[in-house]
């Protein structure tokens, strides 16, 4: 088995996993022709596609691990995180982390020279202009494999869950109680198959995003997941709120994509390629983006010139790239790199619903709950974090700081709103935003592994909680308001306790002291959040100006615990608040609770071992070079980024802080909503203004309405006005001018030319008239005239003749 087989096997497995859902989509969307609305055939097909995809992904992961001799786990026993295998803890090995490979450089130097840890290749070329080339590339490293396995697994479970959840669409006459038409409630045919077609299309897009080997392709699938999200949020197209939410989601994502596009433009113009990895074609090697920017050690070569700081581009050996014509080293202005990083990150902000583009995600809860679980918590919204991680080498320290602050603000802001939200899905939505903020923060403060670690663990426990909320909504007949619930754990125990697993996981609660097999008793969230908080603390110590980056997440951890337990107590504990709802509530069928149980296992154990566990190691394997070591700022007052060793030193302290705060939050929730010693309504009245502010989501919707929506409509009206009055006005004025000229021409013709002729006629006539006076009709006068005339003529004649004679 040679290298080529290794590469093509991996590529084929993942490509199969990627394309199967697309085939599924094409068949399912036409299910109206080959099936009927009461058939589950489309759903089974969709499940088959994605489950096969999961098998392929898992095979690929195992194959990759086996071929690379489990180098990613550095000699630990075989096994991988997702299976929840017991894992012998090993001491954290700083030296190993240091040797972790630069994501794009492949694994040339490490222990497994035969089979690189990262492979890349091309399916086919999309466009090529000279040296500029964009192709359908793939790039496979441990991050890709982990994401693939996670996405296909969660998607499979959610597909299964949806078979039950969407059951009321299995009819020819579905009544939508939320839509009122002129004839009462809306009746329409069920759209079961269409839902699964959209889910399949989404799975295809999401997997494509992860598999993409260049950033342009990421953008392509970025848009595609966006449009799938649009379809799925607007699945109930008849509901106005759903349509609006779908539009809002897509357009706000496009705002982010505007930044993304600017980033792409800069990269395209200054680097001339979009590829992550280098490409060898006809014996000529074209370096990828990351190789150009960073040396194999992960450093950038700065150059101070008169026109400002520039960065020298290098080839994969760290030697400067030369311009083919001038033989000068190729450089890029540093500021442009910052701009490109900001641009790409703007796309991530949109996709991951970070501040200031966070407002679309809560509205996106209009979609069916499996959609919220799959698209809006586990996968698509995490794509922003994924891209931030994937694109990490491109981010300059300033950009990283911006990422950290955006994440920090987001996590706090969303957590505060979640405290007052009463819709069960909206609480989870804000929680998602908040957790995504944690991931961004982690990436921003240099904890690359921790951020992506949290991405995976969060995907499990958040999709679990969403599915649980789906089961609750299903069981309560589409009641989503928590004030109408309560005590439901007696009616739906499986849902309640799997949910509790998720809640504990997200809060990061753990029992640190008695250890089992050398492990703390803790669910996945504890490990990942702990890692982020530790990194934030270290970062704040290194850069004392940015202490907020530690304090807010710490407070956020407390708030998280509070609102998550609030949700659980509100829903499942105590006495029922609405008897009617409680009476009719029931546990979900097996097709729905089995995925819950499976997910709860993963939510609990996927991060087993914490930062020495297999999952984290697997991820860390793709960590860009130079991250592990950290970076001391060269300039005093500049931004220093902590390395792994520094973070590890703070780990215990940060973990204790976070645990105490989370415990406090959970306890407070217990006091308010569990045993109800304190009445939340009183607190609400005490802080009515604050409550109102939070209920109105910090008034961002109003702000954006005033800042963007209305001005855009006003400008749009202006444009039409300009068209109608200015351009058409000019045109009409020109037309009128032409008509006027024609009219003047007519006047000239009629007045001057005709007038002259008429004048002559008139004059003649008038002369005639004037002679009338002497025509008296008197004969005698006439005779007199004759006589006088004859005499005058005679005399005149004589005089004339004589004059003539004389002359």
């Amino acid at each position, binding site marked *: 088995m040679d290298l080529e087989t290794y590469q093509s096997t991996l590529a084929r497995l993942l490509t199969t996993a990627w394309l199967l859902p697309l085939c599924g989509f094409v068949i399912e969307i036409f299910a109206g022709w080959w099936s009927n609305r009461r058939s589950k055939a489309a759903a089974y097909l969709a499940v088959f596609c994605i489950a096969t995809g999961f098998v392929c992904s898992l095979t690929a992961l195992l194959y990759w691990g086996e071929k690379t001799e489990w180098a990613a786990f550095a000699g630990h026993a075989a096994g991988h995180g997702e299976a929840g295998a017991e894992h012998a803890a090993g001491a954290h090995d700083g030296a190993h982390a240091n040797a972790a490979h630069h994501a794009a450089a492949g694994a040339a130097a490490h222990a497994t020279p035969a089979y690189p840890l990262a492979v890349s290749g091309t399916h086919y070329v999309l466009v090529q202009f000279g040296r*500029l080339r964009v192709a359908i590339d793939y790039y496979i490293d441990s991050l890709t494999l982990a994401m693939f396995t996670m996405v296909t697994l969660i998607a499979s479970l959610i597909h299964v869950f949806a078979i039950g959840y969407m059951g009321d669409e299995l009819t020819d006459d579905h009544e939508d109680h939320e839509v009122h038409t002129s004839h009462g409630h*809306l009746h329409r045919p069920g759209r079961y198959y269409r839902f699964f077609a959209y889910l399949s299309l989404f799975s295809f897009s999401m997997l494509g995003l992860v598999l993409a080997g260049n950033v342009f392709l990421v953008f*392509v699938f970025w848009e595609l997941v966006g449009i799938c999200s649009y379809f799925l949020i607007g699945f109930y*197209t008849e509901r106005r709120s759903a349509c609006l939410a779908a539009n809002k989601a897509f*357009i706000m994502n*496009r705002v982010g994509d505007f930044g993304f596009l600017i980033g792409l*433009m800069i990269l395209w113009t200054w680097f001339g390629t979009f590829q992550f990895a280098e490409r060898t074609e006809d014996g000529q090697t074209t370096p990828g983006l990351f190789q150009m920017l960073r040396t194999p050690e992960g450093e950038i070569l700065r150059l101070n010139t008169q026109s400002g700081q520039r960065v020298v581009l290098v080839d994969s050996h760290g030697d400067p790239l030369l311009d083919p014509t001038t033989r000068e080293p190729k450089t890029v202005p540093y500021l442009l790199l910052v701009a490109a990083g900001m641009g790409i990150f703007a796309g991530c902000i949109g996709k991951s619903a970070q501040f200031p583009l966070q407002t679309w995600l809560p509205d996106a809860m209009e979609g069916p709950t499996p959609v919220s679980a799959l698209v809006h918590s586990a996968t698509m919204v995490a794509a922003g974090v994924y891209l931030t991680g994937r694109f990490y080498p491109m981010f300059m320290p300033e950009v990283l700081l911006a990422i950290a602050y955006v994440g920090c603000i987001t996590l706090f802001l969303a957590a505060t709103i979640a405290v007052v939200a009463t819709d069960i899905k909206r609480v989870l939505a804000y929680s998602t935003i908040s957790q995504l903020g944690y991931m961004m923060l982690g990436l921003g403060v240099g904890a690359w592994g921790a951020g992506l670690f949290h991405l995976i663990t969060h995907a499990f426990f958040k999709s679990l909680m969403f599915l649980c909320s789906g089961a609750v909504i299903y069981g309560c007949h589409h009641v989503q308001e928590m004030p109408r619930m309560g005590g439901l754990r007696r009616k739906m125990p499986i849902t309640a306790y799997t949910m509790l697993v998720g809640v504990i996981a997200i809060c990061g609660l753990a029992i640190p002291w008695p250890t089992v097999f050398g492990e703390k008793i803790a669910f996945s969230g504890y490990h990942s959040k702990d890692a982020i908080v530790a990194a934030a603390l270290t970062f704040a110590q290194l850069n004392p100006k940015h202490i907020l980056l530690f304090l807010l997440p710490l407070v956020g951890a407390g708030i998280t615990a509070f609102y998550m337990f609030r949700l659980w107590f509100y829903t499942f504990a105590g006495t029922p608040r609405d008897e009617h709802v409680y009476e009719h509530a029931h546990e979900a069928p097996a097709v729905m609770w089995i995925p819950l149980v499976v997910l709860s296992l993963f939510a609990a154990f996927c991060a087993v071992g914490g930062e020495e566990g297999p999952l984290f190691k697997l991820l860390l394997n793709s960590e860009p070079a130079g991250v592990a070591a950290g970076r001391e700022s060269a300039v005093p007052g500049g931004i220093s980024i902590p390395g792994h060793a520094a973070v590890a030193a703070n780990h215990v302290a940060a973990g204790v802080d976070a645990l105490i705060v989370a415990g406090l939050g959970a306890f407070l929730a217990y006091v308010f909503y569990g045993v109800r010693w304190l009445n939340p309504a009183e607190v609400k009245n005490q802080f009515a203004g604050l409550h109102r502010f939070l209920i109105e989501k910090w008034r961002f919707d109003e702000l954006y309405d005033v800042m963007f929506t209305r001005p855009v409509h006003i400008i*749009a009206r202006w444009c039409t006005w300009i*068209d109608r009055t200015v351009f058409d006005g000019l045109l009409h004025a020109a037309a009128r001018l032409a008509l006027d000229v024609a009219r003047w021409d007519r006047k000239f013709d009629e007045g001057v030319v005709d007038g002259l002729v008429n004048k002559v006629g008139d004059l003649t006539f008038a002369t005639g008239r004037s002679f009338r006076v002497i025509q008296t009709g008197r004969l005698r006068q006439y005779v007199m005239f004759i006589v006088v005339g004859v005499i005058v003529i005679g005399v005149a004649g004589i005089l004339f003749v004589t004059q003539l004679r004389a002359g």
Partner: protein
Amino acid sequence: MSDNALLSLIIFLPTIGALGLMCFNAKAEEAMRNFALVITAATFVLTLLLLGRFDPAQAGVQLKVLAEWIPNWNVNYFLGVDGISLPLVLLTSLISLLGMLASWSVKKQIRGYLILYLLLETGMLGVFLALDFFLFYVFWEVMLLPMYFLIGIWGGPRREYAAIKFFLYTLAGSVLMLIALLMFYFGSGADRTFDLIRLAEIGQGRVPGVQFSEFVQITAFILLFIGFAIKVPVFPFHTWLPDAHVEAPTPISMILAGVLLKMGGYGILRVAFPICPVGAQYAAYCLVLLGVISILYGAFAAMAQTDFKRLVAYSSVSHMGYVLLGIAVWKLADPNLGTTAGAEYWESGINAAMFQMLAHGISSAGMFFMVGVIYDRVHHRDLNQFGGLMGLMPEYGGLAVGIFFAGLGLPGLCGFIGEVFSVLSAWNYSPLLAILSAAGVILTAGYILWAVQRVYLGPEYKGPHREDITPMNGREASVGYVLLAFAIILGVYPESMFGLMRETNKQLVVNMTEGYENSKKNAPKVSAVTPDLGEGVLFDPIAIPANPGAGALAPAIRGR
């Protein structure tokens, strides 16, 4: 079939069909429609044959046809295809075929309609295939007149206004083109010519002893550009478009948006750019700026419309802005020498612009068709009186949403590639304008999604004629599916079109760069040609035959 016959047949088969329609009984409407459909389908097949004979690896003009036409003035019947014209010829015959399928909705005076329609097709194909400027001009005008009547007779309530507006705008453009045509003719040295290839060589300074001066190039370019910009349409010259589109019957709107607008872009690439490299470079910033303004302005204006068709018409203004943007991103490293900076980005811009023309041809024709389908049923286009069509006509709704998303520039559909690459190529030229043009993606999403929401989504249909809403018939569905299929093919495999045009566009970039350099090098000598453009010669027709060799030169289509 020889190449000679093939190209001529492509152009004149519709005319023959129009003559054939005369033989039908005036009451045999169905037969006439089917006959015209067969003619357009046959034309499409012929263009496919043309595609089969075309060699994409060759940059220059292929399959040339040359015959004397008016030897006294050295006017020739000169046809040929290259990578720029071939895709557009294919697009024209395809859209004509689909438009004919959509013509069943036209009810009155069928024979006249079909005859004019076929003549229009002849005019359009002629424009794309002609390589003699005079012939080009003739076809340009030939296409204008049927269009005028098609809008003016078969249009909506304000058809006269729209038809006259369209006619006058286009005519104004033609006049400017005519002036430029004469400038070139009388400036082309002793053996005067209308041959576009020869003129391009002269303009690029590749013919010893004769060259258009910078002044001539700039003036002619501005004249030509305004003439073509009206057709594109570019921002200040666009107001004929919404009116013409709104009033025109559905198939004519499809042709207008799908093909006629492309003539503007084609004219710039075929005539204005190659002949006047200096003019093109001189006006490049203005062109890019106008492109960006069109993108944003069209999108904003589309957002404010309440008439469905008018919205789609403004979206055309916006989308065609990307064409101009992509064409004109020609950056010089050194204005004095004329070295092109980042020629590959310019090349990608031109390719993207060409692709955008094709993509827009598919998507906008589709959008107009979709508007037409619903208009035929409910007889209104008020966006605020639609809603719920997705439930009433699921197949139509699905197709329409697909095609509207192609217009939105969704990856995987045709609109994306052209838009994104013209925007990407713009940064090299001007970061500011590139950023502004990128902002178009937000606005486009805004107005298209809003329109989709108001028309297709929502609980129920709110307008009149609720009872007339019936599912699409097979003919309508087939048009929709074909358009959507092409949108997907172009979006997923853009190489299918890039492959045809790549070499030609590359050559264009090289020629233009050289042309500019030559012009700069020869600058002092150039004045020798200018006196030839003196008034006495220009306006004295007797001088033409007196010119040595003019009449006898027709056979000497020099060296190609």
